[in-house]
């Protein structure tokens, strides 16, 4: 090595290698420790769930959407064709592009929602039948209320974000992994069936909490099909707080009329615009 005043070079140019035989031995010990720890506590954390759902006393449909939208990407990364040794955001983005539309329906209420990740369109039908059509590319916010014969148009509020802040595939990844937290929740995984198809059932719970979140994931497509949140009452009965079904259609409503607004309703600027 050449004499130099730059100590950094000494560090950078001083490689260490490992003996493959010992490498295998050490790695074997590490993996054995991992397997033992897992068998001792088969429940693993399902991070992010609590921070995104459970902190809200009143779980909102849109929040559930954000969770599942994130989980879709997360699941794809976990179980899809993306290899852990060479994952890039571009690969995840490509994977996400295959899932343009997501349709959600509240199985205990009338709410319905569609999200298009490619065109950044978000459509929601609320519990009173009002339809919101938000096109984040054009910044248009359309609203039709069943009590009105008109569809009102206004700019999307600057504070509002597509899919509760998930505005694109890379952001989905960032937000999802940014939200990973060790907050005491444990997830158990099991196999089962749902609507006649094989599913993997992820159940997230916490010892000190009466809430349980269950996500059913299609074993074949690796996509979530249902998200349920239940709360145990003091008398032991279980109350279903949220029960959302998911599917992934090739396309969604092209406009607010296809989402259910009457064709006779004209689009006008909102009165306060």
């Amino acid at each position: 090595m050449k004499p130099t005043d730059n100590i950094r070079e000494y560090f950078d140019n001083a490689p260490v290698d490992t003996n493959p035989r010992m490498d295998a031995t050490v790695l074997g010990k590490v993996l054995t420790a991992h397997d033992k720890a897992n068998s001792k506590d088969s429940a693993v954390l399902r991070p992010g769930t609590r921070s995104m759902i459970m902190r809200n006393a009143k779980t909102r449909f849109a929040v559930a959407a954000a969770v599942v939208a994130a989980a879709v990407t997360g699941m794809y990364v976990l179980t899809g064709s993306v290899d852990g040794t060479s994952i890039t955001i571009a690969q995840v983005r490509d994977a996400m592009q295959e899932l343009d539309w997501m349709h959600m329906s509240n199985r205990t209420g009338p709410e319905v929602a569609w999200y298009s990740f490619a065109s950044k369109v978000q459509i929601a039908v609320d519990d009173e039948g009002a339809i919101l059509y938000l096109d984040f590319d054009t910044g248009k916010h359309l609203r039709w209320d069943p009590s009105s014969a008109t569809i009102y148009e206004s700019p999307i509020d600057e504070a509002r974000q597509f899919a509760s802040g998930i505005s694109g595939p890379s952001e989905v990844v960032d937000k999802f992994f940014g939200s990973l937290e060790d907050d005491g929740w444990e997830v158990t995984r099991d196999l089962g069936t749902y609507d006649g198809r094989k599913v993997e059932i992820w159940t997230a719970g916490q010892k000190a909490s009466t809430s349980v979140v269950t996500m059913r994931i299609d074993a074949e497509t690796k996509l979530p099909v249902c998200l349920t949140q239940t709360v145990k009452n003091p008398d032991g009965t279980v109350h279903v707080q949220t029960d959302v079904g998911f599917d992934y259609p090739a396309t969604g409503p092209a406009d607010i009329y296809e989402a259910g607004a009457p064709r006779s309703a004209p689009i006008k600027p909102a009165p306060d615009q």
Partner: protein
Amino acid sequence: MMEDRLLIWKFKLGDRDALRRIYEKYKNDLLKLAIALVTDVNVAEDVVQDVFVSLAESANRIRARGNLRRYLMTCVANRIRNRRRDRRRHEAADTDEADCVACASGRPEEWAILSEELASLSDALARIPYEQREVVSLHMQGDMTFRQIARLQNASINTVQGRYRYGMNRLRFLLNGERKHETDR
């Protein structure tokens, strides 16, 4: 960074391959740091193995945020500090001298294969006080800031910067002196 987050997430979900990948990705960096800190390769190997085993057992506790490499580097530094502290409790002998004796006594089967450059660097580092060695190694090899090292050493940033300056001067003298000596021969 993003790859590390994915690895941690998969690891937390029980994925063995993610742990294997973390091991492959960081074992050399951790070994290099440990060798710089303790000089005894046997001890360095033990420490790094312990860090990985501990990581493997703590999927539920590890936080996904932050820098995985820095986290592992800090684990190595903390483990070595604890080891030194324990040894000081039980032995009056100077730990560095003990390390060098162990070095010379041969190894059953080596895991780390040191380059000539790393062996020279390790020898030079062994001749500077531990606190200085730690600052230089963590800053150079661990890419840690002085603030982060100050937190780890429970010292002020000024103290850490001072240790770094003294350590670097001494290291420069030792390494270049050795090289000059070799050239003269």
